[in-house]
């Protein structure tokens, strides 16, 4: 059987964010639902029960404590039920007023730390945000998950969706596969920059090379912290947010700066210099239009051009001042009712990705920025290394397939791919070399222009876009070999998902 496109649901489960959408349209649309992948539990509700058990804050999954551990909190409660958890808007509202809420991020490890919490999140998306009804659920669901979950986990998820959510059909897609599909390639390396972790997944001919998958502990959080730290030495900023007459607490200074940085990068004011260039050096040569366009900065250029026109009528003195501002690359910022200028240092935002040691020993207030700086490999090292773990004869296809940098950060900051490519040059041999084994070329992938709805979101929604593409193929297939139908589930049980979602095999 096949389904109506308008009924198909995509749920994209990332480490820290869940995105979802209902219906497949002719022009594939970005997700309509986006919530933080976190749940809250009122501590007071469970204090008694927990004491009775003699156990608190124990995650049900023994694996969570051993591996990949994220620093995001995890507060599992053995006897908490799905309905006990606060999710989404509900949680945001409660958090604004109450303080005894234990927050958990069940997907932060790239695995599922707590099944009840995971179920609470998916349930909220399905029945609250997308307004489905359990009793008459005609929607098939395509769920994206981090790669490498165990089969038991897949089966358990399949069981949840059929036995609890009563979905009409179900399939699972591993995120990197969807991401590379969105970039219109079958081979390559997907670099998914998350909040605190970056997942690196080599893909060969549509299949994840699982043995070469890795993640490194650098992420947007590091970039934000780093820039916030740099801004401490910017006197105009410091003077604005923490005026001498009313100085902020040291901790408050950092959190305020973080807020400021968040605003700046999310507004798209950050550029990424490629290897060997300093931020300043690149700013001088705006004449190389091609490079600017490749780096995705055309909008900034056009805007500055418009500004020039607008100011043409202004006085000469005014013009001189503007020119000077432009030369210095000053950015006027409105932040919490304050107005001040931000300098070139904002373009150093992404530096920690390529050199996590920058953060080592840097403190803000009383907290060391990173205790694990030594462990985390720079992006280029991790990527080069990951590809080196694949088979000798696969590497050239992976490299020439392309680097695909995705993740939230790529919605607003363009050019990370180019910067990464220049740093990976040592892994590519001389292009003149007569070889049919060694890699001679590498390219950078982006979400193609022919997805108009995704033009303004960079590579950020690649996983959702890829999942939409896969869903369109999967659920329109009358053969139905790539998803689990209700009948399949009844006859084969949870195991059916292993056989029916081909990328899992």
């Amino acid at each position: 059987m096949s389904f109506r496109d308008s009924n198909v649901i995509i749920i994209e489960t990332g480490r820290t964010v869940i995105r979802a959408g209902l219906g497949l349209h002719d022009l594939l649309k970005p997700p309509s639902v986006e919530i933080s992948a976190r749940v809250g539990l009122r501590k007071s509700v469970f204090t008694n029960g927990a004491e009775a058990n003699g156990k608190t804050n124990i995650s049900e999954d023994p694996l969570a404590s051993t591996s990949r551990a994220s620093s995001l909190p995890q507060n599992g409660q053995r006897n908490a039920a799905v309905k006990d958890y606060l999710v989404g808007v509900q949680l945001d509202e409660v958090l604004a007023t109450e303080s005894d809420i234990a927050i958990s991020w069940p997907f932060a490890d790239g695995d599922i730390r707590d099944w009840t919490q995971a179920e609470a999140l998916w349930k909220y998306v399905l029945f609250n945000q997308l307004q489905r009804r359990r009793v008459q659920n005609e929607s098939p669901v395509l769920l994206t998950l981090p790669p490498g979950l165990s089969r038991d986990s897949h089966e358990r998820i399949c069981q949840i969706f059929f036995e609890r959510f009563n979905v009409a059909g179900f399939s699972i897609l591993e995120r990197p596969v969807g991401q590379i599909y969105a970039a219109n390639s079958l081979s390559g390396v997907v670099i998914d920059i998350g909040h605190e972790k970056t997942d690196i997944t080599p893909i060969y001919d549509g299949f994840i090379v699982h043995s070469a998958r890795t993640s490194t502990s650098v992420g947007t959080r590091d970039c934000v912290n780093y820039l916030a730290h740099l801004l401490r030495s910017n006197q105009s900023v410091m003077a604005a947010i923490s005026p001498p007459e009313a100085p902020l607490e040291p901790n408050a200074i950092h959190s305020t700066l973080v807020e400021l940085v968040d605003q700046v990068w999310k507004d798209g004011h950050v550029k990424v210099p490629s290897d060997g260039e300093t931020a300043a050096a690149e700013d001088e040569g705006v004449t190389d239009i091609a490079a600017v366009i490749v780096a995705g900065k055309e909008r900034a250029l056009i805007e500055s051009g418009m500004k020039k026109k607008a100011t043409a009528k202004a006085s000469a003195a005014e013009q001189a001042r503007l020119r000077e501002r432009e030369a210095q690359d000053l950015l006027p910022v409105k932040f919490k009712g304050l107005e001040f200028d931000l300098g070139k240092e904002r373009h150093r935002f992404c530096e920690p990705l390529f050199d996590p040691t920058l953060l080592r020993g840097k403190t803000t207030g009383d907290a060391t920025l990173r205790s694990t700086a030594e462990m985390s490999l720079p992006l280029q090292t991790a990527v080069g290394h990951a590809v080196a773990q694949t088979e000798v004869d696969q590497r050239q296809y992976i490299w020439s397939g392309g680097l695909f940098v995705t993740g939230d950060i790529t919605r607003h900051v363009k050019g990370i791919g180019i910067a990464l490519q220049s740093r990976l040059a040592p892994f590519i041999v001389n292009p003149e070399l007569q070889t049919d084994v060694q890699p001679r070329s590498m390219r950078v992938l982006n979400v193609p222009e022919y997805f108009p709805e995704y033009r303004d979101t960079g590579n950020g929604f690649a996983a959702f876009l890829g999942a939409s593409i896969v869903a369109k193929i999967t659920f329109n297939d009358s053969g139905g070999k790539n998803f689990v139908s209700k009948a399949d589930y009844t006859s084969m049980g949870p195991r059916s998902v292993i056989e029916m979602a081909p990328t899992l095999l």
Partner: protein
Amino acid sequence: MREAEQTGHSEIVDQSRNFWNARPSTPRILATDFFARVDEVSALVIDIGTSSVRAGYAGDDTPKAVIPTTYGLLKTAPDADSAMPDATDPTQATTGASSKIYMGQFGPSVWRAGMEVSNPLNDGLIHDFEPITALMRHAVVDVMRCNPSDHPILVTEPAWNTPANRERMAEIMFEEFQVPAFYIANTGVLNAFAAGKGSALVIDVGQTMASVTPIVDGFVLRKGLVYSPLPKLVHAHARHILTNPNQQRRGIDLFPHQLVANKQQVEVGAPPRFTLREDRLKGTTDSWRNWYEAREVEEWIQSVAGVLEQGWNDQVAASRPPRQYEFPTGYNCWFAQERYSVGEQFFWHSPQLMASNPSLPKTIPALITESLRACDPELRQVLVGNVVLTGGGSLFAGFGDRLSAELARSFPHVKIHSPGNPVERRYGGWLGGSVLASLGTFHQLWISKEEWTEHGKAIVGQRCK
């Protein structure tokens, strides 16, 4: 209405939450149709070789986890500001008071100051079980994310494994991993199974050992089992070719990427222009560098080296097209005849070499002859008609053809099964285990935990023949 529905839903959830929690931590046979589902015990298969530990689900065609058997060992005391890694990193395990081992794809291969590397296997046999336990745990728990107490596990062993070793393995599985069932199977037999044969002559060329194992009706003929550390010799020969200067070129530096800061493109044969990471050189241990250089040699072999199909012949070797190869330093050059002399070591040793080195490992043809001589004359014809070529070392370009030519010299009806798919060749032992453990008929062979508790170590030898 929604309220009611919500209540109802929560009720269901509550019940099932109890069901989740009440789940016994043993593998399951899924309900409903017992006979149709009886073979689904979700067994795992672990194949331990010198180069890698392979782990995966029985019934699959490729292992899910492939991690190097070599591990890194850092002996420094865990001080805060020394190069101490994240305590939560899964690729590490604490071995003693002040040493850590680094496992997995990103374990030994990542440069760390002062890190030594080590391998728990010696001539294909496990000699150090402590890291083996850690490696298996890493493969199953961290990479596959499975709970070993939920799955029966089949482990492989080389044909020359000792009874003490296999009993130790059973002990680890039952006592440390708490597996519900266990079996240990011979890689020779499994390779024959992977090729769909019950009787075969299995020629397995691994990273350090080459072996010839006659299999009849799924049993190893122990009297015909022969093996030698031939691949080591081949590797040493390749390394010798690369690092020693000859008329055409200087000796080649095998610095890995981790020690090269940057390189520039140079002409063919021109001296490389690169800068080393001086900051790392000091902290690089000999064992790490040696291991990594061996990897560089290995990759060169995989990309360039081969073996002549019809035996060594200077003219033929000279007529083959040369190949170009670039090393991490940027140095690149052409390799002509010499790339064939590497593979030749598998099949022929010069009389001078043999005279000067009496303990030289036997060549493949010598091993085959010796193995067949020990078999019943009536069996030989059957065996050479069912030769199975396996092991990552046999992936040498031209290896299968050469073997065929060598065998055809002595036997009229040679038939060689050599899978073209490198995964099948490299992980033949694992694949055979996957086939075996997913067979319904295999169920009765598992040693269950109860049986282990009841009979102890003796049952391993009785059940796994």
